[in-house]
């Protein structure tokens, strides 16, 4: 139970939970409450700060995911087709997250400094759409990961 392999796997799973959980909380819990409870100037002030903080958390979680993922591949000792598909999806997720926080998030941050505007609302809508796409792909990656360890062609089982 207390091996380096388990520790790396634990950190890997925690990073997924943090990245996915943070995005889902922001999209489905925080954003609707902000719309209901705050007037537009206050809402923009709060949401622009959240975009930054969440961006740092999600991008750092993705970094932890990649590093621990590399170690997981080393521990497993093989690369299957399923794992190759997963790696391609990981690159796609990193690209979309960078676009979401580094591009849309930065534009929201800059434009919203002057207060609410139609441009900011438009960017926020795009930000949410990209976030939902990232979340969906991450869920697909989680499903593929289950296939890698528990499915009929599980690479771990074949090595044993």
């Amino acid at each position, binding site marked *: 139970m207390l091996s380096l392999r388990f520790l790396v796997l634990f950190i890997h799973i925690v990073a997924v939970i943090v990245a996915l959980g943070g995005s889902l909380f922001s999209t489905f819990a925080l954003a609707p409450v902000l719309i209901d409870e705050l007037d537009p100037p206050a809402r923009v002030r709060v949401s*622009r*700060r959240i975009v*930054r*903080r969440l*961006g*740092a958390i999600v*991008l*750092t979680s*993705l*970094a932890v995911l*990649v*590093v621990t993922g*590399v170690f997981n*591949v*080393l521990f497993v*000792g*093989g*690369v299957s087709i399923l794992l190759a598909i997963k*790696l391609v999806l*990981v*690159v796609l997720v*990193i*690209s979309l*997250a*960078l*676009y979401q*926080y*580094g*591009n*849309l*998030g*930065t*534009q929201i*941050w*800059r*434009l919203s*400094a*002057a207060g609410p505007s139609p441009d900011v609302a438009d960017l926020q809508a795009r930000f949410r759409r990209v976030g939902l796409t990232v979340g969906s792909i991450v869920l697909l990656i989680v499903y593929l990961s289950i296939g890698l360890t528990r499915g009929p062609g599980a690479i771990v089982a074949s090595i044993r």
Partner: protein
Amino acid sequence: MGWLTFVALLLTGIFTLSYGLGAHIAVRYLNPSFGAWWNSNEFAIVECAAAALGMLIGIRIGARLVHGGALKNRSMVAAVVVGGLLLPIVARITAEIARFKFTSGGSVTAWLIDHFRYDTGMFLDKLLTASVYSMKIAAFALPVGMILFAVAVAIFMTTEPAGDAADATSTETAKE
């Protein structure tokens, strides 16, 4: 960045071809001691150059996705510096992963021997294997480069003071 990527691509190409073709013999013929050095180091240079190429491509892809000149430039420089420091470790790990199921496959070897006869077929097989190995290293290093850039973006994003946002906006927009 363009020059660094070009140098990494050139080194990967030259040393992969050299390893695949056994070109150290030609270098030994011209300069025996340099040829011996070339032969003993070409494989390590293939691994390092391919990993560097993958990371640089990853950083450049990441940079294309980010808005804002100052944030992009600072993040790229930081990612390249950290990537350079981590290069020996990244090259070693990605090379190890690239060696999993490291073979061009019996069927490909057989096909090459069938079509080009034994000597040429085996020669082409070694060249193909070396090329696939380099490409696999670069492919595995690409997400590492992207993520280094992403972490740099996250750090520089959060260190920008919230109160100075309006000033930063006008200054950076003017620069762009």
